[in-house]
C-alpha cells in the first residue's frame, strides 16, 4: 500500500512508492506478506463483484434508476427499497448499481489513457533522447506544476461536463507519472547488452523499441496502472461530486453523494449507500493493486 493518497485521489503514487523506505525488519515483512495474502482475495472478490454488477446492472437493479416516484420520496431502507429512496423517489440501490458502471469505466479508461499516452511519451523521451526528451519532459513538468484536482477541474470544464470530459481530464492528469516512469525504465534498458546486440544485427530503431525495450520496461507501468485505478475512481467521484462528470439524472456515486448532501438529516442513506460502495471498491482495488505489485515487482518481494 505505498500509493498513499488521502482524500480526493489525486497524487503521484509512483513517487510515493519510491519514497517508502525499505523495511529492514524481516519478521514484519513476513507478517505483512501474510496479511496481504489474506487481503488480496478480499480485494479480488470486491473487484469481481464490481465488474459483475457493472456488466449485469440492467438485470440486477430492482428498479429503473431514473424512475421517479414522487409519492414515495425519502423512504427509509426497507423490504421494498433496500437502500431507501432519494428526494424524488428513485431507488438508491438501483442507482448505486448503475453507478458502478460509471466508476469502473472511469477508473479503467482514464488509467488506460494515461498509461498509453505516458508510455508513448516516455518511450519517445527515453529512447530518442536529445531535443525530444527535453520537450516532452518539460511538458510533463508543466502538467505537474498544477495541483492535480485543480487541473482536472479546469480541464473537465474545458472538455465539457460529461463522462468523456472527466476521462480525458484524468488521463491528462495521470500521464506525467507514467511518462516519467517509462522514461526512467527505457533509459536503463537502452544500455543493456541485448539492445546493443540487436543493433549490431542491424535491427531498426523502431523494431528494437518494440521488441526489446518495451517488454523489458513494461512491468513498472503495469504495477503503476494497477495501483492507479483505485485513485482514478476516487478522482472521478470527487469531480462528479463537484458537478463535473456524468450529468443528472444519470447516476454516478459522486453525484449521488452530492445530491444527497441536503438530506443528511432526513435521509442519510442517500449519501451513505453510494458512499459505502465507493469506499469498499477503493479499498478492494487497493489490495488488488498491492498484490499485483508484490507479484510483479521482484525488488519489493525480498
Amino acid at each position, binding site marked *: *500500500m505505498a500509493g498513499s493518497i488521502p482524500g480526493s485521489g489525486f497524487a503521484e503514487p509512483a513517487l510515493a512508492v519510491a*519514497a*517508502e523506505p525499505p523495511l529492514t525488519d524481516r519478521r*514484519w515483512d513476513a507478517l505483512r506478506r501474510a496479511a496481504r495474502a489474506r487481503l488480496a482475495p478480499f480485494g479480488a472478490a470486491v473487484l469481481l463483484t464490481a465488474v459483475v454488477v457493472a456488466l449485469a446492472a440492467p438485470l440486477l437493479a430492482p428498479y429503473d434508476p431514473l424512475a421517479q416516484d414522487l409519492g414515495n420520496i425519502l423512504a427509509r431502507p426497507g423490504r421494498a427499497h433496500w437502500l431507501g429512496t432519494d428526494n424524488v423517489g428513485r431507488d438508491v440501490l438501483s442507482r448505486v448499481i448503475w453507478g458502478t458502471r460509471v466508476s469502473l469505466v472511469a477508473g479503467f479508461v482514464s488509467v488506460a489513457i494515461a498509461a498509453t499516452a505516458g508510455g508513448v511519451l516516455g518511450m519517445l523521451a527515453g529512447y530518442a533522447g536529445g531535443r525530444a526528451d527535453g520537450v516532452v519532459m518539460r511538458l510533463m513538468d508543466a502538467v505537474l506544476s498544477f*495541483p492535480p*484536482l485543480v487541473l482536472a477541474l*479546469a480541464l473537465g470544464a474545458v472538455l465539457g461536463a460529461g463522462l468523456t470530459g472527466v476521462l480525458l481530464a484524468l488521463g491528462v492528469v495521470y500521464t506525467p507519472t507514467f511518462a516519467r516512469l517509462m522514461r526512467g525504465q527505457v533509459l536503463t534498458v537502452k544500455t543493456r547488452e541485448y539492445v546493443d546486440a540487436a543493433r549490431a544485427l542491424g535491427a531498426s530503431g523502431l523494431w528494437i523499441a518494440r521488441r526489446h525495450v518495451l517488454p523489458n520496461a513494461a512491468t513498472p507501468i503495469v504495477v503503476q496502472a494497477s495501483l492507479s485505478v483505485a485513485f482514478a475512481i*476516487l478522482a472521478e467521484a470527487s469531480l462528479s461530486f463537484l458537478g463535473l462528470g456524468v450529468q443528472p439524472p444519470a447516476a454516478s456515486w459522486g453525484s449521488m453523494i452530492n445530491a444527497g448532501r441536503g438530506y443528511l438529516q432526513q435521509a442519510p442513506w442517500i*449519501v451513505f449507500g453510494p458512499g459505502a460502495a465507493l469506499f469498499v471498491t477503493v479499498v478492494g482495488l487497493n489490495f488488488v493493486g498491492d498484490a499485483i505489485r508484490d507479484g510483479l515487482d521482484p525488488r519489493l518481494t525480498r
Partner: protein
Amino acid sequence: MLLLVTGGVFLLLHLTPGDPIDAMMAESGDATARESLRRELGLDRPIAVQYVVWMGRLLRGDLGRSIRNGEPVIENVSRRIRPSLELALLAMTIAILVAFPVALVSAVRHNTAVDRLGTSFALLGICLPNFLLALLLIFVFGVTLRWLPISGYADPLDEGWSGVRSLVLPAVTLGLALAAVIMRTLRSSLLEALGEDYVRTARAKGLSEGLVIRSHVLRNALIPVVTVVGLQLGTLIGGAVITEYVFALPGVGRLVVDAVFARDYPLVQGVILLIALAFIVSNLLVDVLYGWIDPRIRIR
C-alpha cells in the same frame, strides 16, 4: 517553466465551449448589447492578441478583472486567502498532533494490537474520500449531536470562539486525511531507524529510552515524512478545494469551483495561476526544509 504554465492556463480556458457573455447576461440582452460588452472586454479580438495583452498585464502584476463582479482578480483572491490559510494551518496542526503520537506508539509497540489499530486507521484515512469523511462528520457532529455548525464561516481572529467552531469540522476533515499519510510514512521510517546501529550504540551508552527516541530515532525518521508531505501538497490543495466546497467556506478553493462553473475566464486564469505559483513556491520550501532537518543534504 512559468511561460509554459501561463500559456497552458490561457489556452485551456479559451478552448472552453460556452460563452462568458451568456453567463453574464443570462438569456436576456439583445444582440447589440452583447456585442458592445464583448468589445469592451476585448473578447472579440483574435486569441493571440488576447494572450499578448494578458501576458503584458501579467508582467505588471495585473491579473485582470473578474467578468462577473468587475473587481480585480487579485482583490477577489486576497479576500479569500484568510479562510484558506486558517484552514490549512489548523488542518496541519491536527494532522501533526494526531499522526506523531500514533506513529510513535505504533512503531515502539509494533506488531501489537495497538499497532494494528493505528495502521487500520491510516488505511481508512487513505481510502476514505475527503467529501465522504466531511459528510460523515457533518452527520455525526452537526446533524445528530448538533455540537458544531455544518457550514458557513466566521473569522476566528475577529469573532473568536464562533470562528474556531466554524473551522473545526473542515480542519478535522482535511487534517485526518493528511494525518493518515504522515502516520504511515513516519511509522515505517521510525521502524527502520529503530533497527539502526546508532540506536543500539545510544542505548548501549546508557541513554534513556525517551532520549534515544527523541534525539536519535525521531530526527532521522523525519526526512521521508517531509518528502511525502511535500509530494502530497498538491493533493492537500485539492482536498482543501473539496473541503471548502462542502462546508461553504469562502476560501480560494471555493472560488476556483465557482469561477469554473461561472466560466469567469479571467478569474479562473488568475486563481489557477496563483495556486500553481503557490504550489511551486511551497515545493521549494520543502527542499529548504530538508537542509534544515538534515544538514548533510544541502543544495549544491
